[in-house]
């Protein structure tokens, strides 16, 4: 096939020109996007526990067989109650660890006696993470009292789906893309109590540098949350004034 015909040349030239343009365009797009990236870092999914209503979709909509969403206990918000509304069924038969008394369908909450003080018995409630299915039953129960139990996406399990199936189903749109290093969204109150604890640790540390550092880390963790919430607020009020005022109220 003779490549010298003028028609072929013209088409070849046109193709070359288009290809070169496309390569330049792709390189430009790549440069632009890479520049954008430097403003932040990889994003992961996380749910805002203040928006969570414990509907149970986290347990059923996750693409994993056992959801990547798990319950966490913010101990600094916990009352360490004997009669824990997150642990016991409403109509419990006895205040013990028998399955029929437990709210958790998989028995993932471990109840551990700590001490008795002036007639009150205190218990620690920890989550046995592999057993937790993220159904949120305990979250609703605990919300009757302190609300120290709440759901979070665990990033060692999460597949980082490009579109989170739970986020699509979430009735309050509580799922957000957050920077990977942030990893969590604390409840507003958890942020406050953890920050306070961090400051207290720093103040009482004295010569203990290890303790001082731990306190500083805790405070930083809380401040990261505050910055993120402020960012969210300014972004939403920028995109629509009405929404912003609704969040402020």
């Amino acid at each position, binding site marked *: 096939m003779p490549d010298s015909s003028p028609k072929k040349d013209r088409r070849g030239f046109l193709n070359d020109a288009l290809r070169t343009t496309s390569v330049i365009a792709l390189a430009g797009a790549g440069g632009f996007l890479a520049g954008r990236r430097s403003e932040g870092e990889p994003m992961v999914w996380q749910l805002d526990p203040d928006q969570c209503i414990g509907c149970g979709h986290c347990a059923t909509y996750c693409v994993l067989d056992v959801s990547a969403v798990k319950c966490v206990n913010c101990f600094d918000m916990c009352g360490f109650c004997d009669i824990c509304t997150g642990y016991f069924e409403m109509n419990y038969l006895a205040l013990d660890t028998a399955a029929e008394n437990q709210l958790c369908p998989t028995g993932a909450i471990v109840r551990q006696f700590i001490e008795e003080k002036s007639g009150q018995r205190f218990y620690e409630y920890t989550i046995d993470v592999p057993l937790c299915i993220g159904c949120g039953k305990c979250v609703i129960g605990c919300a009757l009292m302190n609300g120290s139990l709440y759901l979070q996406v665990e990033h060692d399990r999460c597949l980082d789906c490009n*579109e989170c199936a739970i986020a699509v189903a979430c009735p309050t749109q509580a799922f957000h893309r957050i920077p990977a290093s942030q990893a969590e969204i604390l409840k507003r109150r958890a942020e406050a109590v953890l920050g306070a604890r961090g400051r207290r640790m720093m103040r009482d540390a004295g010569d203990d540098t290890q303790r001082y550092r731990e306190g500083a880390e805790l405070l930083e963790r809380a401040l990261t949350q505050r910055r993120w919430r402020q960012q969210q607020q300014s972004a939403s009020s920028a995109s629509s004034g009405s929404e912003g005022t609704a969040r402020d109220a």
Partner: protein
Amino acid sequence: MPLMNDACRIGIPLATAGLMAPVAVASDLIPVPDFTEYQVPVSMPPAPDHPLWEWLNVSLLLAALLAASYIALVSRSRRNMFLLTIGSLIWFGFLYEGCICAIGSIQNVVLAVFDTSYAIPLTVVLVFLLPLGFTLFFGRVFCAAVCPLGAIQEIVAVRTTRVPSWLDHSLGLFPYIYLGLAVIYAATGTAFVICRYDPFVPMFRLSGDVNMLIFGGALLVMGVFIGRPYCRYLCPYGAVLAVLSRVSKWHTRIPPDECIKCRLCEDSCPYGAIERPSMPPARETRPAARRSLAVMLALAPLLVIGAAGLGWLMTVPLARLDHNVRLAERIHAEDTGQVEGMTDASEAFRNTGQPKEELLAMVADIRSRIRLFAVLLGAWTGLVVAVKLISLSVYRRRDEYQPDRSRCVSCGRCYWYCPCEQVRLGLIDDISELVDLETEEAKAAS
């Protein structure tokens, strides 16, 4: 302690923040007891995956693209291409479990362009750009043996039939429209529809939305008879690659050197991408062809404008994918008594005590944002149809059997059918052992 004061101030919005159960206000909270020995523990979130995992995926993508290009253009081995296909299916499909993939990355890129608060990771940018770059030089080698969605369909395409040309051309327009839809939803931050309606990812994960599993299964069954139905009639990334592949520098060829027009490869392509040498149109039909081209050219702007108008009318249904729009419609239906009861979403909204007017204002805002994109989507659809009509009314000269660069995925099934290839491989000495060119020519003429 300033932070403790904050705690009390924050506690009050907490009570109205939307928990279903009535929440105790801050002052009613049971305090952490003063323990004698016990240290109150701090729960930490587990660390995310190491970023090296993503970089491993990107380097494997690059390696697979290089291998596919080499196989398609240099070694011309269908067997090796098939082995690479299996390898890609295992890694990008079953081990990596789908996300992030080049097809879905379109949306991340669009979102990154329109939403400054979304920072796109560099690995995602590379996953998006690498196949595009390779296509510009080597054709759609990404589709051939790298994309796991293509791979799973490639394997089942064993009894393919030719799709009628009119149907193939019409259905072939859908990927462009789907691309437009994906772009408008990603740009408005509404949804990532490509990922939401991905039929094969649930198979790779062996779990997922049951509707999508059924859809994927149906596509695979269909794929036995119609080669690669997702790639040809749905894949929005394939649509982009098809355009870029047209100007690719080197593209796979059916014969290793010169085409002898023996017709043996004619039916070898399961995807209907092989084009016959074209007959120059007869002199008497030329004025009619010219007239039809003129009509198409004149029709094009009308099509674009008309479709843009249709897009305008489609705003309300298009906006319905947005959560807040659906919520507002539900609340309106509840208030006017059209439906009984409440959904989780409407109940949660009512519990926040947020006035309905604010929600409606937000919805109006969302609709007006989507309206602009809906018009653009309509215009885009019109443009796609117009370009198709024009390209169909233009005569293209072809002297040999060649793959249509936009539709060919470089799978390499046709190599084997070419007698020149058999000579190249040293399996026969001369093409006359396989084909008698004179009778073939006579047959072609008759």
